[in-house]
């Protein structure tokens, strides 16, 4: 592991030690964040899978209802019955914060304009298959909206987990070892300097003694 390009001084070492401490603390916190995100993500994604299977199955049933409706009704009649809509479905969008990830929360808002309920057509010229189809689709709507909410949350959380994981790994395997290595390098260098100046002093002392008293000890 490459060490940093720094001067081997005591001041630099103190600075690096402080940085190492910060890096360790950051690493610990990010790791906790990743673990908690992961736990919630796994829960959410399992729910997502269940809901998706349910919605897909129900949707294919709806499609088959519409196909049988189109078999007994003329195309024009069917299209014109479905053209106008008695209700407008929207979603109220709110934001929820899961471990610093902003995920949307959708709640369905539907406005019915008349008392005819969900059916946008009169019953006189339509078949009951069409009623079934519209009814089943209408019942599916809350699940579809829930699916959208959960699936979007999963998407956002997956991206955040990946980012956090990268940060944790880079701290753990690159930053922290590099700090440690550099600190070790500086402390060795300082000790080496220490030793060399000590021997130099001893040597000088010997020389001085020798000069003054012709004494060598």
């Amino acid at each position, binding site marked *: 592991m490459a060490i940093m390009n720094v001067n081997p001084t005591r001041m630099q070492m103190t600075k690096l030690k402080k940085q190492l401490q910060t890096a360790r603390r950051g690493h610990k916190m990010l790791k906790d964040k990743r673990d908690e995100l*992961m736990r919630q*993500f796994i829960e959410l*994604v*399992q729910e*997502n*899978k269940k809901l*998706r299977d349910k*919605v*897909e199955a129900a*949707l*294919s049933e*709806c*499609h088959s209802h*519409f196909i049988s409706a189109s078999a007994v009704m003329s195309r024009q009649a*069917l299209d014109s*019955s*479905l*053209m106008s*809509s*008695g*209700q*407008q*479905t*929207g*979603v*109220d*969008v*709110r*934001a929820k914060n899961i471990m610093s990830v*902003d*995920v*949307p929360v*959708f709640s369905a*808002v*539907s*406005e019915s304009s008349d008392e005819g309920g*969900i*059916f946008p*057509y009169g019953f006189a010229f339509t078949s009951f298959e069409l009623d079934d*189809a*519209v009814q089943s*689709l*209408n019942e599916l*709507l809350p699940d*579809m*909206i829930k*699916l*959208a*909410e959960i*699936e*979007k949350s*999963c*998407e*956002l*959380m*997956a*991206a955040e*987990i*990946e980012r956090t*994981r990268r940060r944790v790994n880079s701290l753990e395997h690159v930053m922290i070892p590099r700090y440690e290595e550099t600190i070790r390098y500086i402390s060795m260098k300082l000790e080496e300097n220490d030793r060399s100046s000590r021997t130099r002093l001893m040597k000088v002392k010997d020389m001085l003694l020798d000069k003054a008293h012709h004494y060598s000890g």
Partner: protein
Amino acid sequence: MVKNIAFIGDSESVKGFGAVGIDAVICDSPENAAAVFKKIAEKDRYAVVYITEELYEAAQKEIQRFSETAVPAVIPLPGTRGNTRIGTKRLSAFVEQAVGSDILFK
């Protein structure tokens, strides 16, 4: 903030969604999917955009641009032409992105 829901699909698949109050957007050829989706997504009127699987695949590049924003949520759903399981594959891709390998759906 109340926003609308859109369903993009071929004329068979969107049938009925208009009746329950979802804006049905017809797009019969996959080549136009990206352009149609772009028009819908840029309006900022829609919080949820459902799209049939084949169109999802065709417009994937355009859809990717919204993967980091909270709205619109773009959700692929099977159309009348059968289920290609793109939705489930998308889920496994999320798991793979988050965990590093697909540990749930294998």
